[in-house]
């Protein structure tokens, strides 16, 4: 967990995933499902429910 939630940003380290991104979960294949927590309700949400009725647009990010 320490490596994921790093305490200091390191540019060379953080550039590595950009190089490998094309090989991550190709378009046309199935995206994995994960449980997520709704910020406001505190309830757990299954990611797959987002795309159960149509398209899901999922932006990943953080405040910083």
């Amino acid at each position, binding site marked *: 967990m320490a490596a994921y939630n790093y305490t200091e*940003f390191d540019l060379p380290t953080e550039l590595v995933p950009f190089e490998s991104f094309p090989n991550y979960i190709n378009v046309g294949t199935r995206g994995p499902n994960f449980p997520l927590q709704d910020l406001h309700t505190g309830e757990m949400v299954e990611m797959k429910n987002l795309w159960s009725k149509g398209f*899901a647009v999922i932006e990943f*990010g953080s405040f910083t």
Partner: protein
Amino acid sequence: MATAAMDDLADRYADRAVSSVFLYTREAHPGENYRHHTSMEDKRANAGAFQEQYGVRRPILLDTLEGDAHRAYGVLPNMTWIIGRGGIVQYKAAWTDAGHVEQALLYALDTQDRKAKEGLTPFYSETLSWRQRDDEAFKEGLKRTGPQAVEDFYGTKKN
């Protein structure tokens, strides 16, 4: 980040069965004011501050503390994915640009309507995409996070 533009896009397509969310990950540039997460309470607090600062209208969903979803989808700081019914990935972008996302979404909606009646068959393609950089806004964000975030990014830390 294109937060406001992505919120607007979410509003425009909500009535076409498009579900738009912001998936909150780790802090990309931790600093004195918004530190790295050591608990879900940390993550919730920073996500709440983010929502307040930008007035985000889309639902904000928190990943696990260990970033299970974030790591599985490529661990980039501001990527966007479009996933269709059945969980099939339609679009993935290493960075979020609302205009680019909208083009992809319109294409996905259009082909969804046409593929059965026109007998469309899928093929793989790639494009090199471009986005506008707002260096001033980025630097303001780093300053808001704290001096450490500025020093870490610009390499100005004094040893």
